[in-house]
């Protein structure tokens, strides 16, 4: 009888997958794990130094905050991508199209004293951010980083289409990150944002993006992600 009930349940639910996996939550998805050579290099570079200050501009990750506070670092968390979707920063350009006002955005976000941070975690923010904000945000990072400060960023190597999954990255060890799928986020004013891959940077684009920085190191991963560690 139990098997009949199971079959009927499958019929109405459209398959067995929903039997095995719990229904996905809108924000709390299962995590997958991947090795990160860039994070490993960053960890080694920061090791043994006390009182460091780290900026994480990805989606808020409790794990990242825990990781760095346990090392005695001061951590700043600021979801820059989510903030950029706040409609208060939208303005009409010369052609009447809506565009993000980068000056206003930077007046209210990433607003730190110069040379505050020893490291910044960008994750794949640049791939999903609106075009007018990418360069100003990278320039602002340069100004808030200390000389020698490091930026860890991820870039897609192939165009996976606009619906490429957007992840929250959680540090899960010295060279390991967990990826948590984020379908949508809500900004402070309640507007909901879907995450769309805006572009794919090649190596030359990335070098241009960080041309004011001292040096740049690429790590090519197997999962079509290019990791970059940039030194100010």
């Amino acid at each position, binding site marked *: 009888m139990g098997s009949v009930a199971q079959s009927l349940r499958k019929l109405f639910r459209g398959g067995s997958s929903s039997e095995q996996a719990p229904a996905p939550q809108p924000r709390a998805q299962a995590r997958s794990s991947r090795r990160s050579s860039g994070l490993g290099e960053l960890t080694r570079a920061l090791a043994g130094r006390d*009182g460091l200050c780290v900026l994480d501009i990805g989606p808020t990750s409790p794990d990242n905050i825990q990781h760095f506070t346990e090392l*005695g670092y001061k951590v700043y*968390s600021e979801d820059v991508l989510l903030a950029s979707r706040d409609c208060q920063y939208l303005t009409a350009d010369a052609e009447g199209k809506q565009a993000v006002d980068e000056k206003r955005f930077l007046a209210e976000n990433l*607003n*730190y*004293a110069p040379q*505050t941070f020893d490291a910044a975690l960008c994750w794949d923010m640049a791939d999903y951010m609106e075009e007018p904000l990418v360069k100003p945000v990278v320039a602002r990072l340069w100004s808030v980083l200390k000389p020698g400060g490091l930026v860890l960023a991820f870039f897609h190597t192939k165009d996976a289409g606009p619906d490429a999954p957007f992840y929250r990255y959680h540090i899960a060890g010295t060279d390991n990150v967990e990826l948590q799928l984020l379908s949508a986020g809500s900004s402070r004013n309640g507007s909901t944002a879907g995450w769309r891959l805006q572009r794919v940077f090649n190596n030359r684009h990335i070098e241009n993006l960080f041309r004011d920085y001292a040096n740049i190191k690429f790590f090519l991963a197997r999962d079509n992600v290019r990791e970059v560690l940039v030194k100010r």
Partner: protein
Amino acid sequence: MWKHKEEEQPEGGAGRAQGSFGVAPGRPESPRMTAPVSGTAHIGRSVLIKGELSGSEDLYLDGTVEGSIELPGNNLSVGPNGRVRAGIRARGVVIEGKVEGDIEASERVELRKTAVLTGSIVTQRVSIEDGAYFKGGVDVKRQAAPAPTATQPPRPEVKRESVAASAAASGGSSAPLPKAPLAEQKKS
């Protein structure tokens, strides 16, 4: 027989969401203040307070406060309808609503999944649930290890058992910190 048996979900904030952290092993967890309990002052959702709010008892705040909140020896809980635009000083702070302002808690700060916090946190322990929005800095001040007295012979070797313990022992958080954000400088 046909009814699909649903798994029981923990209600409200009683269950800890994936990704929360902050309770040191072996240490008792402070009382969780998800709803007003007896012995706790209660400010309802329709109440608006502008100015300085201070007291010597635990406070459950589901209304709006603009100004400052001083509960140095007690706990503050900001309910899901709570809206706070104030600096907060308390023993423990639990947030389910929206807070704009810096928090200084002598024991712990806990952001539930519905929390929206814009401001810095200075405390000993932090817990942030998945889904919480947080914009600001976290400075975890570990309790300083008691200094060896004259009667106690100095230990020849300090064994560090965990990363957290080593951070506390090395006094990492007491090291000089970089400049505060512009927003903090403006306030001061």
